[in-house]
């Protein structure tokens, strides 16, 4: 008898001991807490170095960035707003710095190409013909200079440029400076139809005054202060859209123990009345955009997030506990006993707070996410999302049920 009873009791204990009544709920909760922790780890503010030319470009890229960077976003991320700061605008790199070497055609060179008699070129060279005889060329002068430079530079690199100075007779003898570039095994006359490349000479620096002291610019003598005026003087007849690349020498100061300088380039464009620097250029600003996780996707949000302050609660008869409560979340009068009935007292209080304390947010299309303390059998922080449309705030989302009855 008692064995039966004892074993019955033990049986009973085995049946019930294994059952922790809240096991399922606890498992679910710890899983949720993990998800929440992951979701909470997604920052609400992100600062990026990336640069986007337009908001549209940024929206596409940043949405992708959020999706790729935070695969941990989950159901608890729903409604979360992350603000990303990035560069918006244009960055134009400086033009290539190409410094031409100078080469002065010598008497020997004239002799080499058959012009030794007058030691000058002439209009008879600057025309199509044969050079050497039997080889037709577009321009004899170019072919002769190609021959000269091939002697002067045994192994030129592709793209090398040389400013060739020679005498030219066209009734009078003048000195000409023409840039030749080594392209595909041939020295060709260098020409850029869009951009004029001009390399400042010592005389140019001296003419500008202060830069003449060291024949350079520097941080204390910046090019921006001189070159527009220089261009006005030297390109007096420039037409709108004309561009000039100016190559200048820049003093870097002490680098690794010794003074250093380097060549730099800057592009100016004539804009009808003045010369504007167009490269290098950085027109970007730091811009902030909010992305809200909505139905599993990060979407650009124009909403402003505000967290109600003690002063806000005090404004609307909720100053005692600095919160809203279940008894605000229902129809009723506001202010108390004023006879003014509202569908939902809490929403009315929020409206009043926005009107009085956040008036800059009250404009057509303004979207605001209001976070507030809420009491209903316990304290929590809740939020509502509202948009100002047609002169009224329209509720679009909320973390608790807004009750109208």
């Amino acid at each position, binding site marked *: 008898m*008692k064995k039966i009873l004892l074993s019955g009791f033990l049986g*009973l204990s085995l049946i*019930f001991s294994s059952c922790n*009544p*809240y096991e399922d709920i*606890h498992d679910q909760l710890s899983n949720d807490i993990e998800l929440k922790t992951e979701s909470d780890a997604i920052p609400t503010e992100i600062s990026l170095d990336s640069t986007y030319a337009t908001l549209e470009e940024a929206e596409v890229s940043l949405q992708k960035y959020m999706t790729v960077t935070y695969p941990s976003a989950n159901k608890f991320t729903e409604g979360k707003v992350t603000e990303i700061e990035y560069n918006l605008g244009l960055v134009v790199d400086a033009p290539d710095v190409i410094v031409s070497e100078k080469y002065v055609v010598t008497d020997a060179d004239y002799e080499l190409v058959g012009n030794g008699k007058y030691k000058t070129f002439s209009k008879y060279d600057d025309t199509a013909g044969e050079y050497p005889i039997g080889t037709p060329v577009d321009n004899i002068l170019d072919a002769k200079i190609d021959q000269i430079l091939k002697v002067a530079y045994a192994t030129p690199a592709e793209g090398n440029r040389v400013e060739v100075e020679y005498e030219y007779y066209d009734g009078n003898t003048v000195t000409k400076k023409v840039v030749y570039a080594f392209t595909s095994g041939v020295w060709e006359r260098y020409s850029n139809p869009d951009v004029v490349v001009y390399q400042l000479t010592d005389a140019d620096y001296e003419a500008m005054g202060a830069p003449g002291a060291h024949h350079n610019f520097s941080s204390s003598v910046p090019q921006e202060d001189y070159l527009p005026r220089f261009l006005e003087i030297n390109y007096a007849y420039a037409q709108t859209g004309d561009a000039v690349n100016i190559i200048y020498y820049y003093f870097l100061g002490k680098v690794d123990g010794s003074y250093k300088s380097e060549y730099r380039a800057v592009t100016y464009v004539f804009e009808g009345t003045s010369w504007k620097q167009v490269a290098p250029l950085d027109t970007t600003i730091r811009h902030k955009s909010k992305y809200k996780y909505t139905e599993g996707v990060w979407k650009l949000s124009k909403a402003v997030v505000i967290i109600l302050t003690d002063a806000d609660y005090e404004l609307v008869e909720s100053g005692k506990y600095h919160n809203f409560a279940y008894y605000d979340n229902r129809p009723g009068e506001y202010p108390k006993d004023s006879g003014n009935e509202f569908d939902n007292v809490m929403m009315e209080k929020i409206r009043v707070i926005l009107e009085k304390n956040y008036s800059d947010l009250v404009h057509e299309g303004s979207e605001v996410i209001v976070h507030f303390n809420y009491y209903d059998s316990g304290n929590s922080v809740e939020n509502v999302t509202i948009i100002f449309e047609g002169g009224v705030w329209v509720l679009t989302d909320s973390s608790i049920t807004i009750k109208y009855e």
Partner: protein
Amino acid sequence: MRSTFTKMYAIFGLMLISTLGFSQGIVKGIAWDGDMKEAMVGANVVVKGTMNGVTTDFDGNFELSVEPGTKVIVFSFMGYTNIEKKVTVAEGQTVDLGRIVMNADAVGLQEIQLIANVAVDRKTPVAVSTITPAKIQEKLGAQEFPEILKSTPGVYATKQGGGYGDSRINLRGFNSENVAVMINGIPVNDMENGRVYWSNWAGLSDVTRSMQVQRGLGASKVAVPSVGGTINILTNTTNAKKGGSLYTAIGTGGRRKVGLTLSTGLMENGWAVSVSGAMDEGNGLVDGTWHKAYSYFMNISKKIGDDHIISFTAFGAPQEHGQRYDRLKMEDYQKYPSGINYNPNYGYLDGQMLNERRNFYHKPQISLNWYWTINESSNLSTAAYMSYGTGGGTGPLGASVTRTNDGIIDYEAARDANIANGAGGSKSIIRASRNDHKWYGILSVYEKEASDNITFSVGLDSRYYVGSHFREVSNLLGGEYYIDNSDVNNPNRKAKVGDKIAYNNDGQVMYAGGFGQVEYSADRLSAFLSGAISETSYKRVDYFQKLDSDPSQTTDAFNFFGYMIKGGANYNLTDNHNVFINTGYFERAPFFKAVFPTNDNDEANADAQTEKVLSFEAGYGARYSKFAFNANVYWTKWKDKSMVKTFQTENQAGDLIFGTANITGVNAIHMGVEADFRYNPTEKLTITGMLSVGNWTWENDILDVPILDDNNNLVETVNVYIGGLKVGNSAQTTTALGIDYKLFDGFKVGADWNFFGNIYADFDPLRRNDEADKGVDSWKMKDYHLFDFNAKYSFKIGGVDAMLLANVNNLFDSEYVSDGFDGANHDWQSSTVYYGLGRTYSIGLKVKF
């Protein structure tokens, strides 16, 4: 008192092992309770110096086989003085010792039982469960005092937050304001709000002699709020025998307990003195719930002649403990490593644990009892008593404090902010809300046996009570002072630690009651009819909101009349079966808060409604030598629960004032079936069981109640949608099964299974104003099972009796929610909860000398 538990004791032994084959004699007789004048059930009858013994059956009979010769037979029962009888038995002879009268080993016990209206088995027509001192000793372990009752029908007892003394007990679904608690017959429910704070009595278990639960209206003659029932606690009085005991125990959470009892015994000069003291401390299982508690008890009794006993009793249980005060959503517990033991109410300051919710209380209760046996047929018992309560609970005040990532309060930050606030004083402090009181009372009962069958008793019950409610600065958290502007007599005060802030008022309660009872007792029938009337008078004194020069600092008296009438009868169908019925109706004064709902002297609610209770009950009992069974059904209607609505209105001068309106008709019906049994198939094995099925619901919706202002203008209408909703906060179904098994002499093990089901989260019915929620019950909590284990080993060390006690509660470490408060969506996600404690153990050693 012996009544029911004697039955229980029958368990331990009821087997008359008189089946021995060789030549023996027999000693038989009846053990008789000299105090209660009834058969002594379950008394031990042993041949001295041997292990040969039996226990008496439900009728007190025993039959013991003994070897021929002259023997000394020892009769013993816990709480009673041992008796030795010399007897000479010849082979084959049966010696009838007749009636062996045993008397309680305490002085004045019988008399106190009379004042306390202890129910008598098969005579008092109420449903009752009694816990004996032996059971308290065996089962208490690390449990809270009220939890000892959890295996009796209709009881739901929890530890709430889990702090020491923070337990509560609900009876038949009613909370403590509807459960009368009496200690030695003296009512201890708070005079203002009717509640019982068990932390006041946490150490009382050390000096408790017995605990009886009378469910329903109960046997008390005085008007007590026994809607759910009455818990009758009898403390020790003075041991009739010289000696003492030493007790020490350790347990879960670094718990340590030491107790000592000494008694002179009843001396020849008529004096008897007993003293006991205990110390109890520990860190608690729940984070931050440390405790340090003491208890003391002294009783001095003097017999004057044969007719008078004067007994002076003083006891108290000063304690201080950290609480877990805030219930949290389940999710919030899971967030932190402590899990279900997480406590949001503590932090650290300068490396010391600081619990913002510290409870401290000391309520010494002193009584002087005089028992006068006037003549053979009449007696007068009088108890004059007083209790001085001091203490309260701390909590945060001012700017809210932040938490660390571990979820504990960042007191370092709070202190830095307070210091930074400089001359502005502390922004965040810890305050103590004090609830001191002084309570004086006299309770006197005159009893007269008018004839063999009829006994009259009349009595008076007078009480005067002043409750002092104020807040004081408890901890400035680094600041110099706290600026408080609540006292019109002392505006903009820079309050320092100990200074009163926020509010300071007294509640004065005068209570005068009278009662009378007629009892009829014939052969098989016993019946009673009793009535009580009372006048309760409330005054409020406001020291902060009213200038000292203002006569309205003290309000006029507001008087409320209450009465009770009840009756019942028990009929013993046969020697084995009895049936009983009882019924009663009472109206009781509204609580203080209903009279001053806005805590403003000028806005007293003189029309506060009395609450009404109507109850019917019928029961059946069976008593056999090895089996006892009780069953009963009850129906209780709680009518016009005090519901006071406050609203703002304009008075004639055009000022905005608060108005109050009494809303009547909030009713609840509690009905159910309760049954319990006890079975001892053999001397070594005892099986007990209990089933309690309740159906407790709020009765009806209350619709379109107009709230009118002084000028009869409609202010608003109120709807309360509670019709058919289940009453929350208690398990409507409970079951228990227990076994005790004596493995060998002196060693006993016991196991108990308890089931709690149909528990709905607590909610405030007055808040169910949303029609959309109509008919939606509060969150139904999950049913749970608990297993407890206990072992007791009795042995001798150097000639003194010693006892080793071990308990494990919640053996399987079940994670369950014991207390839930309903949330907005009536589900577990929105509700806030307390978890029950995980597995706890305690091991104790008791040495008697």
